[in-house]
C-alpha cells in the first residue's frame, strides 16, 4: 500500500454521456464517493447525459427495458424484450428500481447533486451538446456550475493525481 500513499488520487473528472438511470447513477456514485473521501470531483455531462441535469428530465430518468440483457423479472427470470416494448413498462420498471435504491439510502438524482455540490463537487454541461440539443442555461438544474468546452474541461483536469473517467 506504500504506493497508494505516494500517489493518491487527488481529482476525478467524470464524463457522463448517457441518460440511462444506471449510467447516470454510476457517475453520481463515483463523484459523491470521491467528494466523501476528500477527492476533488467534477462531472461533465454531454450528449444524452444532459438529461440528468436538465430540470425537465432529471427526475424522469429511465432504465432501458429493451436491449438490456441484465434486466430480470422479480425472482430472476429473464425479462422478455417484447414485454419491455409495451407502453408504461419502462416507466414501471424504472420506478421500481428507484424505490429499491431509496430503500438502501441512495438518493434521487436531484438530491444526489445537492450532496455532491455541498461537498465541493462541481457539475458542468458540455457546450457542444448543449448547442446541438438547442438548450439554454436556464434549462439546467441550479447545481450546474457552467457550460464549458472540452478545452476548458481539460484545463480543469490539469494537475498531478487526476483521473478522467468516461461513463
Amino acid at each position, binding site marked *: 500500500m506504500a504506493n497508494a500513499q505516494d500517489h493518491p488520487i487527488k481529482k476525478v473528472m467524470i464524463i457522463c454521456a448517457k441518460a440511462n438511470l444506471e449510467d447516470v447513477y454510476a457517475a453520481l*456514485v463515483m463523484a*459523491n*464517493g470521491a467528494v*466523501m*473521501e*476528500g477527492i476533488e470531483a467534477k462531472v461533465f455531462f454531454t450528449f444524452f447525459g444532459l438529461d440528468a441535469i436538465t430540470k425537465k428530465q432529471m427526475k424522469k430518468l429511465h432504465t432501458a427495458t429493451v436491449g438490456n440483457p441484465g434486466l430480470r423479472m422479480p425472482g430472476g427470470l429473464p425479462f422478455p424484450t417484447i414485454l419491455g416494448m409495451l407502453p408504461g413498462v419502462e416507466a414501471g420498471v424504472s420506478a421500481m428500481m428507484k424505490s429499491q435504491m431509496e430503500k438502501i*439510502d*441512495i*438518493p434521487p438524482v436531484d*438530491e444526489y447533486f*445537492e*450532496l455532491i455540490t*455541498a*461537498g*465541493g463537487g462541481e457539475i458542468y454541461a458540455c457546450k457542444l451538446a448543449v448547442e446541438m440539443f438547442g438548450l439554454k442555461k436556464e434549462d439546467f438544474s441550479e447545481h450546474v456550475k457552467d457550460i464549458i468546452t472540452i478545452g476548458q474541461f481539460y484545463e480543469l483536469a490539469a494537475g498531478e493525481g487526476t483521473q478522467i473517467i468516461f461513463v
Partner: protein
Amino acid sequence: MAEKVYAGKAVSVTDDGYLTDPNQWTKEIAIEIAKEEGIELTDKHFAVIEFIREKTLKGEVLTIRTIGKSGMVDTKGFYELFPGAPLKKASRIAGIAKPSSCV
C-alpha cells in the same frame, strides 16, 4: 492493530487510526485525534460527534445523507465542520469504526 496514547490514556487503534473499542473514548481523546486531523473542536463539533456516537452505538449505519437530514447539521455544514472527508474524520474523532457506506 496498535496502541496509542491520547490524553495520557493508552487506547488500541486500527492501522487507519480508528479506536477499536468505542468505550475507551473520552472527550479529551477526541480533542487530540481532532488535532491530528487539523480540526479544533467546538461545541458544534461535539454536538455532531455525540449524535454520531449515539446513533452508531445503537446499531444505526450513518451516511453523509442521513446526517445531513438529521437536523443536527446540513450536508454543507458537515463538510465545513470536518473538511475533506467529513464522515471518516467525524467517525475517527467520535471513536467509532471507519464508515463503510458508499453514499
